[in-house]
């Protein structure tokens, strides 16, 4: 162990500024990294009465993630750092969860719209569906058939990836739309 600051880091005894500076130093110095690993081995020995195996999990994981694209969290998950830390290698931007949901919902809506315009039931309702929603004539049987088709092909829609969201369509006529308004 080369310096007392690392000892303080191990005990969480640094101010936020000192913490960032110390991490910068540790991450730039292989000897300090070796000390970090040694001290946690020591802690495992004294607190857990021994270490489990002499394995190289750190090295193996480091080798594997070195091959992986550098992951960058969205800004709302990770506060901006003051020091410039420019990632190297391939960079994959991860969409935020909310953005994903919105995108998938949009895909699901597109799917439902395609169903609405391409559906061809045996009954006479199909031509009115193909015209405008406002002039559709209501038929319970046709609506059930339409729902069944959506469910049957639902795995191809974005909604399949969303928990609790089910693609749904309802056949309405002009008066219903007027009433709803």
């Amino acid at each position, binding site marked *: 162990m080369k310096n007392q600051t690392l000892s303080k880091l191990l*005990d969480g005894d640094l101010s936020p500024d000192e913490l960032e500076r110390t991490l910068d130093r540790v991450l730039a110095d292989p000897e300090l990294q070796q000390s970090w690993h040694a001290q946690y081995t020591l802690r495992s020995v004294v607190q857990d009465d021994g270490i489990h195996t*002499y394995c190289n999990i*750190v090295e193996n994981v480091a080798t594997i993630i070195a091959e992986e694209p550098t992951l960058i*969290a969205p800004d709302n998950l990770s506060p901006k750092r003051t020091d410039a830390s420019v990632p190297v290698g391939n960079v994959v931007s991860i969409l935020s969860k909310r953005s994903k949901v919105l995108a998938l919902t949009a895909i699901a809506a597109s799917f439902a719209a395609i169903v609405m315009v391409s559906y061809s039931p045996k009954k006479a309702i199909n031509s009115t569906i193909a015209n405008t929603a406002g002039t559709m004539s209501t038929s319970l049987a046709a609506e059930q058939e339409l729902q069944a088709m959506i469910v049957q092909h639902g795995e191809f829609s974005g909604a399949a990836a969303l928990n609790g969201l089910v693609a749904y369509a309802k056949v309405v006529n002009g008066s219903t739309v007027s009433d709803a308004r």
Partner: protein
Amino acid sequence: MSEAEVDLALVRRVQQGDKQAYNLLVGKYQQKILRLVSRFIRDSMECEDVTQDAFIKAYRALPNFRGDSAFYTWLYRIAVNTAKNYLVSAGRRPPAQDLDAQEASNSVAGASFVDLNTPESALMNSELITVIRKTIAELPDTLREAIVYREFDGLSYEEIAEVMDCPIGTVRSRIFRARETLEEAMSPYISGN
């Protein structure tokens, strides 16, 4: 600043693209996760593979870690799920009794773990424990007391200063010197680890 905050600072760096910061987290928690996984999986090699897999999965999921829970709690859940999924995929049944998630924030010492050490590593482990105990016993009284209060009893610097009736700065210095001595004594046993 707590240890959880140090973890969070490292996590933020990984989220900004610093892969090296993740190695520090792996080094910090590898033994705890190995112990945890050994509750599910008996075979030493499988246990190491699953532990490694859990760390890789955690790395890939890290962009979505928001810091709502402590990093170790989050990692603990990933490791438990990875171990269970491994057993299912291998056609084995995971234990019916689930592990208490509350344990995640505590040390996993004292639970009924499988000894994963091979005869050779068990011997080295035994030697390492002996060396550490001997080195601690041979430390000057003030250093020994400080490191024992800190590492064995988990006292804070303030508490140690009160017990030892000395300034906090002295406590810091004593703990540092004890660690320095111990690290030197341990080095033949942990090189390359």
